[in-house]
């Protein structure tokens, strides 16, 4: 039996270790499209998280009943059902929000994060673990969209969450709210994330090597002394 990680780890890993945007590089389409402003990013991430959590729970529940050959088809139907529910409920109860997010809600069906987590995690793990995994990945997605949206909104419109931050004299860089700005920001952030991870790895390797060298040195000294 494989060693189980702790429940808190199951949630926390989604925030950074396997962050959907920066580590799994999934869900790029909505990430690039809706991060024109921070608030759009938040709404998109919340809707995605809702669908992610419920489809993960259901898929984990029926994971033993679904034959391997048709699992993807079954997952898509489950995901699409929840997305349609979200779409209908939002149109009925929150028409303003529904208008703002427009065509992006139905597109959650093909968001790779949801299918990716269903395939990689929920189809192999218990309901509670799948729920934590979905919540963690959703939070990770929210963090990346919020960061991306804030940067683009700040440089592209001079505001953050609709509040003017930069002085009136600041001339907004319109490119930041166009698709090109999305690619630039995402690329730079991803580079930064990789740089940070690589540096951390190098430091830990360096630490291991030092430890080893000290040990061998000790051994040599002992041998020499003897």
């Amino acid at each position, binding site marked *: 039996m494989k060693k189980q990680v702790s429940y808190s780890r199951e949630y926390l890993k989604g925030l950074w270790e396997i962050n959907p945007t920066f580590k799994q590089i999934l869900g790029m389409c909505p990430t690039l499209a809706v991060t024109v402003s921070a608030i759009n990013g938040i709404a998109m991430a919340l809707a995605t998280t809702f669908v992610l959590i419920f489809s993960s729970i259901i898929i984990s529940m029926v994971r033993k009943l679904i034959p391997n050959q*048709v699992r993807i088809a*079954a997952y898509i139907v489950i995901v699409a*059902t929840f997305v349609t529910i979200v779409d209908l409920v939002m149109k009925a109860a929150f028409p303003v929000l529904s208008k703002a997010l427009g065509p992006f809600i139905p597109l959650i069906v093909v968001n790779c994060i949801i299918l990716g987590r269903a395939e990689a995690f929920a189809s192999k793990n218990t309901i509670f673990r799948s729920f934590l995994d979905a919540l963690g990945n959703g939070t990770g997605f929210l963090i990346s969209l919020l960061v991306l949206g804030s940067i683009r909104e700040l440089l592209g419109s001079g505001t953050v969450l609709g509040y003017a931050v930069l002085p009136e004299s600041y001339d907004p860089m319109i490119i930041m709210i166009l698709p090109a700005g999305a690619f630039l920001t995402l690329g730079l952030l991803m580079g930064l994330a990789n740089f940070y991870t690589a540096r951390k790895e190098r430091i830990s390797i360096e630490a291991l090597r030092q430890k080893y060298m000290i040990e061998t040195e000790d051994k040599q000294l002992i041998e020499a002394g003897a």
Partner: protein
Amino acid sequence: MNKAVHILLTLMVTGIIAGGVLALVNIWAEPRIAANQKRETEEAIYLVQKNGKSYEEIKTVKGELFKVFDGQKNPVGYSFVYEGNGFQGKIRLMIGIEPGLDKVTSIEILEQTETPGLGTKVTEHPYKDQYNGLTIGTGIEWVKGKKPVKPNEIQAITGATISSKSVTAIVNEGTALLRKMKSEGRL
């Protein structure tokens, strides 16, 4: 159990459950969505006709045309839904127009898919407000980078000229259609 039967059964049951759940949600949501849309249209009708108190739909034409009345049942003008091409997709407008069909009272953008942050500025006040009380004459014209001087001119948005032009064109086309209908006595 036979593998093929198992596969078929799984997909069938999944489909039936999904369809059933969606039907239930739809029963709850449908009347609310319809009510929201109706309220939205009504709000838009009065938004472009500030003195409007009641309205009636004119059914003799294709599309949505509403004759708007004030408190004393005097006609204050028309609210007219008209759409046309924008920069990336359709733009749907509610156009408020005076009874003589020569002045716009104001306009409201109902639907658009313009570039976020650029073309979407046509939905914001500085641009929209230019249409308040605008004379149409032989057609609304637009200028770029300077203040409008003629009574039938508006200033296009920098960086969103096509979207600005499109809105103007839609208002012009809509008005032309109304004028044609009036000359045919269908209004």
